[in-house]
């Protein structure tokens, strides 16, 4: 081993402080994060807070076609909101849609994730194929399922009628009892793979040791799943529920394309209702009020959820 430093400038070491020059002092440890956050905050201010305040402003005004302008209406829109059976109906549809889709996508996603969580040959390909559903725009997915669920020409009623699982009419999207399920089908098809991806990733990251020792202890697969997998995955599941839940609650594309909210109001969601009030009926103030109400509900629910599940960032 050679202990002598090479000759030359380096021997004296890197000159850090010249003699007599006071070291620079800086608040490096309490580095201000704000420079780093500035672009994000700027974006959020312009694109999130401004729309929020604008909507609050709108909710106290209404567009008057005659004047081609806004008119102050006070609390009228909010009054109308709480008295509007269509709005409450939409809220109910939105909540049932969100909760049912969420439940099915979680359970199905977990089941498929367990199925696909394998290093055997071919499983990588299967996981890859499954992600294909994600790259199709929901607007096109909606059209696709509209075609497949058509009572007359659709593949799905054709098959269901063929195997006797459905009565002769074959109507899905025009049947008030089935329409929401028909829309959900598209959502579930498209987004279950998203859940599968998240869960597979979560499963892959689980430590092996607890499972091995549980196996030695003689636990059954089901016991291991309930006692080990689920608790260890709880954080992943919570985040998946949160992110997916938010998107489900705002869902617009499928109903817009597939049912226009029908039959009747069976598939009217809050997003669609807000859209219609805003663009079809030119009630901007009321549309904004509905949007704010929807935002309020989802923020409250999400907050409770985060509190209950103790999610922390």
């Amino acid at each position: 081993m050679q202990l002598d430093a090479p000759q030359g400038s380096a021997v004296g070491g890197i000159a850090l402080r010249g003699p007599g020059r006071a070291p620079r002092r800086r608040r490096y440890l309490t580095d201000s994060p704000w420079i780093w956050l500035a672009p994000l905050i700027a974006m959020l201010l312009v694109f999130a807070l401004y729309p929020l305040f604008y909507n609050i402003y709108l909710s106290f005004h209404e567009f008057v076609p005659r004047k081609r302008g806004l008119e102050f209406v006070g609390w009228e829109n909010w009054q109308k909101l709480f008295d509007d059976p269509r709005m409450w109906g939409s809220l109910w549809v939105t909540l049932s849609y969100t909760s049912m889709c969420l439940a099915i996508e979680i359970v199905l996603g977990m089941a498929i994730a367990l199925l696909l969580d394998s290093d055997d040959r071919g499983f990588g390909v299967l996981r890859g194929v499954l992600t294909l559903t994600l790259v199709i725009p929901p607007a096109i997915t909606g059209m696709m399922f509209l075609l497949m669920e058509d009572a007359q020409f659709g593949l799905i009623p054709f098959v269901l009628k063929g195997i006797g699982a459905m009565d002769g009419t074959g109507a899905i999207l025009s049947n008030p009892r089935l329409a929401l399920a028909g829309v959900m089908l598209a959502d579930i098809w498209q987004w279950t793979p998203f859940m599968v991806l998240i869960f597979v990733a979560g499963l892959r990251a689980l430590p092996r040791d607890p499972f091995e020792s549980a196996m030695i202890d003689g636990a059954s697969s089901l016991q291991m799943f309930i006692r080990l997998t689920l608790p260890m995955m709880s954080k992943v599941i919570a985040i998946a529920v949160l992110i997916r839940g938010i998107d489900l609650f705002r869902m617009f594309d499928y109903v817009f394309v597939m049912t226009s909210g029908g039959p009747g109001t069976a598939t009217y969601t809050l997003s669609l209702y807000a859209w219609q009030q805003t663009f079809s009926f030119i009630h901007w103030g009321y549309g904004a009020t509905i949007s704010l109400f929807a935002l309020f509900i989802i923020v409250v629910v999400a907050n409770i959820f985060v509190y209950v599940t103790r999610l922390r960032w």
Partner: protein
Amino acid sequence: MIMTPTQRIVRALIAWVVVAIFAFPIYFWITVAFKPERDIFALPPKLASFDWNFASFQEVFGISFGFIEGLEVLPGGGNFYMLPRLYDSIIVAVFSTLLSVVIATLASYALSRMRIRGQHHFVFFVLSTRMMPPVAVAIPMFFIYKNFGLLDTYIGVILVHALMNLPLAVLLLKSFFDDIPAEIDEAALIDGASRFTIFRKIVAPMAMGGIAATAVLCFIFSWTEFLFVLTLTQTSLKTVPVVSSTFVTSTGTAWGNMAALGVAAMLPAFIFILLVQRNLVRGLTLGSLKQ
């Protein structure tokens, strides 16, 4: 889990069947793209026994698949000529992804490494910007864009898509940075690197996998977004989801063309996914296993 060979085969079989069920609608959609118009509504549905043809694709992309049918190249034109729209989609998705990943990487590095009062609340606030119904964002954006001349521009759509993806990107990337031990930063700090050098030379390269996964998700969400593009664009650009409604005409829907566009539009996004599939799976745990 230790499985017998039989169990493995059964499992593989079930897995293939399940994936096939999910893949089937895509196959169906592909057949629609290749069917003659007439056969799309045929009963019983024709799933394989029809004349495969490229007519829908030729109309949508204005090219002849002449090498197959001995035809000349067709000039583009017509309502259903969608090649420029695919190009618009790619521009918007790529640049909005870049923008949101850059902004979110900076922000989430700070959130991961620096002490911020009420950090949890700040992150929740960031997330809550994703909770706004899109229509509630679209109208105010329309007026801002009108004032700043961003209406109907690439920049405008790119900005709003970047915004839409920021909450998810920040959440994801923060978890990746949290996974990287802070000692690495400290070592570099002592080595004399500035915060930004540490970020650029050390930590960001280490989080590359996570950044790629985030990019894929941003790309997908931008690729498939509908309402913002619908509201904020006019004639100079349109992305695939919005332009697909062009096929809904007053005399019926051009299903074949729509399917052709849908199938073609799957490819760029799918290629993007395949390139980073490994990272995607790792990335999607959202770092949530680390407490």
